[in-house]
């Protein structure tokens, strides 16, 4: 609120825009700049994947619901795609979208149960909800191999167009670009939706739901729509993660980590902004990996906790929050 009402200096906007464009080009040419260093590229691939996760989380967040249970969609996405490609030998081109759809199905169940709640009650219900798919995955040994996890998952698939092909699985550069394209496509979708009248409806719902309903907005339908889209893309990101890392286990993909991290990025970057969550992921994750990980190998993730606390205290609308209507 305070930040929103501050007048934004036009020259500041210029600097900000130039910075964004510059950052975008750095991301495009990054593989050329760090040719000999796979580690840096891997970190940025992961950062972009987390950016997609934060964008997906924020698709729900923008309608006023705070989810602490997105690991459910992430895990189901990861397991669906990994199992289908391992056991049925299906191409990830096919299994990744299927993973998204299954996550959407889970989102529908979560929505029907939890969306009647608001605020902290919704958040707590989603936190509990993660346990359902986690316990099932953990115990259905015949299908999921239980807590052993899955190893040897196929890498990202190969794209063939006639004689020309890119193998996204074996080349780190290629997988970087695939995740890059996916994240920016999602960013484009988010920008389109948030700037349309739908974005206006989301804002109305999160700011004053009773009034929103009274002026003709189908609030329940919009809130469910947000959850389903959010679940779909979180599932896709989970599937990409499985093929990227090629090893998953229940405690990893259903862990609190994947519920909390998109929320932390979204809150730090600006919950009601288009770009904020993605920007926070792309900046903070490499900072964590390159600076804090070497310093504190065991406890480097305290960074996220500290940043979340600081953000909530001092910039509750996020880095980009003050620009929300600009």
């Amino acid at each position, binding site marked *: *609120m305070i930040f929103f009402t501050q007048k934004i200096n036009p020259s500041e906007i210029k600097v900000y825009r130039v910075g964004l464009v510059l950052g975008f080009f750095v991301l495009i040419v990054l593989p050329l700049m760090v040719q000999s260093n796979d580690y840096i590229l891997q970190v940025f691939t992961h950062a972009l994947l987390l950016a997609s996760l934060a964008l997906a989380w924020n698709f729900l967040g923008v309608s006023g619901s705070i989810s602490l249970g997105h690991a459910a969609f992430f895990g189901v996405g990861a397991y669906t795609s990994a199992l289908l490609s391992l056991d049925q030998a299906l191409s990830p081109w096919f299994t990744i979208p299927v993973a998204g759809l299954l996550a959407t199905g889970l989102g529908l169940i979560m929505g029907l149960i939890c969306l009647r709640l608001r605020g902290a009650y919704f958040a707590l219900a989603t936190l509990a909800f993660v346990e359902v798919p986690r316990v099932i995955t953990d115990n259905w040994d015949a299908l999921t191999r239980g807590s052993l996890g899955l190893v040897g998952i196929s890498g990202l698939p190969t794209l063939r167009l006639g004689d020309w092909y890119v193998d996204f699985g074996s080349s780190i550069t290629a997988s970087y670009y695939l995740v890059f394209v996916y994240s920016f496509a999602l960013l484009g979708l988010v920008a389109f939706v948030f700037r349309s009248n739908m974005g*206006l*409806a989301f804002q109305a719902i999160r*700011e004053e739901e009773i009034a929103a309903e*009274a*002026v*003709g907005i*189908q609030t329940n339908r919009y809130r469910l729509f947000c959850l389903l889209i959010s679940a779909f893309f979180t599932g896709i990101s989970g599937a990409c993660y499985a093929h990227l890392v090629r090893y998953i286990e229940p405690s990893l993909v259903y862990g609190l980590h994947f519920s909390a991290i998109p929320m932390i990025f979204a809150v730090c970057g600006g919950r009601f902004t288009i770009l904020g969550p993605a920007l926070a992921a792309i900046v903070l994750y490499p900072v964590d990996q390159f600076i804090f990980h070497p310093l504190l190998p065991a406890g480097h993730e305290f960074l996220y906790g500290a940043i979340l606390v600081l953000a909530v205290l001092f910039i509750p609308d996020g880095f980009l929050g003050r620009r*929300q*209507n600009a």
Partner: protein
Amino acid sequence: MTLLQLKSLSKTFNDCCALSNIDFTVSEGEIIGLVGPNGAGKTTLFNLICGRHRPSSGNILFNGIDITDLKPHSICRLGISRTFQSSRPFPQMSTLKNVLVGHIFSKGFSLHTTPDDVQIAKELLEIVGIAHKADIPAGQLTLSEQRRLDLARALATRPKLLLLDEVAAGFSPVLVKQAIQLINRVRERGVTLLIIDHFLNLSLKVSDRLLALDHGEKIAEGPPHTVMRNRDVLQAYLGLRHQDEEDM
């Protein structure tokens, strides 16, 4: 022509009877004042008409359509709109966007806002007299400006029937005068009005008829001055007179 018809409408909350057996009819073009002391059930009646609460029994007909079980957004799209007792703007949205929301979503869905939509929203802000605040977040408006905004947003949904909940409560005499002018302007647009007016500073001057409630029951209806001389209404507002008690 009958616009709104309430048929033996009742509402109980946890065995507590908020409204019982209300029968009432509103004709097109009328201004009805809904009066009664605190807790009489005035706002509950609004919430039933707008679909926020479901009646325990009875029916609500609007333009001949049974709207008893419809959701608030459907009822809004049929042409009933309301303001709130304590206004409920979208606080971080600009004042103009608040009105735009009312205009856009009451007619079904369109993906993008057109310049026409913006023009209509601006005109409505003009009518309620807060056009100069169009770009300010609604949360920063004063109380009386927020009530005006509430009214503009409600009008933006193109209502046939508009329910005003305590629009003039706490207003100075000057503001009440402005509110009366505003209500007459709204009536000229062909809108039927139902006005809750606890303090009677508005409804006596603009209403065609009054509906008086007390403890959830209808105690009187009719032209303002007849209703205000009604013994039950006087009792509800002022208590029993000593002599009346002896009569009983």
